[in-house]
């Protein structure tokens, strides 16, 4: 197996605050790889670094062997990376399905000329993008909301919508930052099914999540962060029995 995402000695400091410090790990293609840790441990910062929203202050990030430290998020998207956010990022000025079609942006290459004069190529592209978006919304379980304004949707539905948008790009790796936050037990169970399906279909999943039952049940590998540093790394059973983790996190 080759490492899809590889992180070496990664650092991110905000002024004096070391949000991420000397973090190394690697994610193999096809894995469900989770990052856990207490509030403020640096999980979201780590995701922001990997997806290009932040530039590292030290260390290296690789995607498929290529160093990506200085790439923009859109360039990482072109290389097959997509994500959702802890603070949901939905375009409230669009309908639900338009949000998902937005996720398909990179597959739609109509020129400005074709667009301005609405030539047949554009109509074909849009039609297939709309179909694909509708299928994905069905897949994540918000098929009832196709033409609903995003601003009129419930929190849980928006969470699923954001996943559908990330999937619309046909990503190689998808990063989910606390997808279960704010969901009830039924919704969380459905989410677990969904993540399993995504992984089974060959997409690598990176997950930040506080719901231990969900994380332990679904992950192939776990990274535990504490104060920006790696506390432990391993399979769920290794993590569960790691004395440092028990002392610092699970037991606390």
């Amino acid at each position, binding site marked *: 197996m080759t490492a899809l995402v590889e992180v070496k000695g990664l650092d991110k400091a905000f002024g004096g605050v070391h949000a991420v410090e000397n973090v190394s790990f690697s994610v193999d293609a096809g894995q469900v790889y989770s990052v856990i840790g207490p509030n403020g441990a640096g999980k979201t910062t780590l995701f922001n670094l990997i*997806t*290009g*929203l932040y530039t590292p202050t030290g260390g290296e990030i690789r995607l498929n062997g290529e160093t990506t430290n200085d790439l*923009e*998020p*859109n360039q*990482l*998207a*072109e290389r097959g990376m*997509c*994500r959702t*956010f802890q603070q949901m*990022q*939905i*375009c*409230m*000025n*669009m309908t639900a399905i*338009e949000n998902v*079609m*937005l*996720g*398909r*942006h*990179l597959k*739609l290459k*109509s020129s*400005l000329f074709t*667009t*301005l*004069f*609405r030539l047949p190529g*554009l*109509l074909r*592209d*849009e*039609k297939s*993008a*709309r179909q694909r978006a509708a299928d994905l919304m069905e897949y994540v379980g918000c098929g009832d909301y196709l033409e609903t304004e995003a601003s009129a949707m419930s929190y849980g539905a928006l969470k699923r919508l954001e996943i559908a*948008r*990330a999937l*619309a*790009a046909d990503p190689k790796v998808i990063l989910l930052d606390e997808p279960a936050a704010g969901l009830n037990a039924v919704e969380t169970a459905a989410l677990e099914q969904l993540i399993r399906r995504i992984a089974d279909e060959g997409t690598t999943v990176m997950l930040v999540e506080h719901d231990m039952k969900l994380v332990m049940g679904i992950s192939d590998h776990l990274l535990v962060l504490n104060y920006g540093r790696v506390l432990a790394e391993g399979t769920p059973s290794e993590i569960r029995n790691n004395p440092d983790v028990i002392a610092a996190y699970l037991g606390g």
Partner: protein
Amino acid sequence: MFDQFMKVRLRGMIVLAIIVVVIPLFLTNPFQYDLATQILIVGGAVVGLNLLVGFAGQISLGHAGFFGLGAYFTGIMTGTYGWPAVPTLLLGAAVVGAIAWIVGRPILRLKGHYLSMATLAVGFIIAIIINNESQLTGGPDGMPVPALDLFGWELSSFGLYSFFGIEFDGYELWYFFAGLMLLLAVWLAQNLIDSPIGRGLRAVHGSEVAARVVGVDTAKYKSLVFVISAVYASITGSLYAHFQGFITPAVAGFDFSIILITMVVLGGMGSTYGVILGAAVLTLLPQVLADFQELEMVMFGLILMLTMIFMPKGLLPTLGSMAGKRFAKKTGGQP
């Protein structure tokens, strides 16, 4: 499903076309035609500005600068150098688009107030250049502009024309020509909005972070829409110059920039037809309130503020949803 979209869109354009055709029934003199034609031309400029402000969520407080550049490019090239009108208008649009790209690239990195200030400065600089280059532009006194020459056929407000035995005054023809141009402007704008590129632009407004992670090159898209809106301004500026026959640096000035942005905000940011209504209201209002001329800018400022506080969606969308509710009440629910 797609046909549905096209239908809705076609309906809007047909309504606009009907309004344009019906309005002359109420116009009784050349002065009124002149105002109506101004609304149509400036309406085209605000449809373009709305792409930037309403859809992509970026501000420009110097947009009259691009309108003025188009107007003066046309004035100088067709007037002083005798170039043909249509190629000049298109070349002017290309030149203004290039200028917008060059200045847009660095300033569109800025956000909020900083972007406002930067675009304000761009407008000021253009107005100052036009004022000072009096050799070319006639300076503060302005310059005359030849009538619009459409490939050998001259369209002048003062001309007399006859088609199929029907007599038309030049100002009537100008009105219909400007209406046709506005319809074209609306059609192109809507094609842009309802497309992958348009979604990318709206996403820059809705959530710039989301846009970036799905692969939208937001810096490029902001520049693109800035250029497109500048091209709209340039072309409508050129038309305006031909139509008026005389231009002064006021067409590029700060006051006009503020008027343009007020039209967008009042009419409804992100509503293509709304901003045309905004253009109409704010062109007509000073006529109605002619006694308060010195307070004109105060009034525009006040309108801008009041709209943002009490009607943030703008005139047309607000009227639309009020009508929708009425209708819903009458029919018992389903709007």
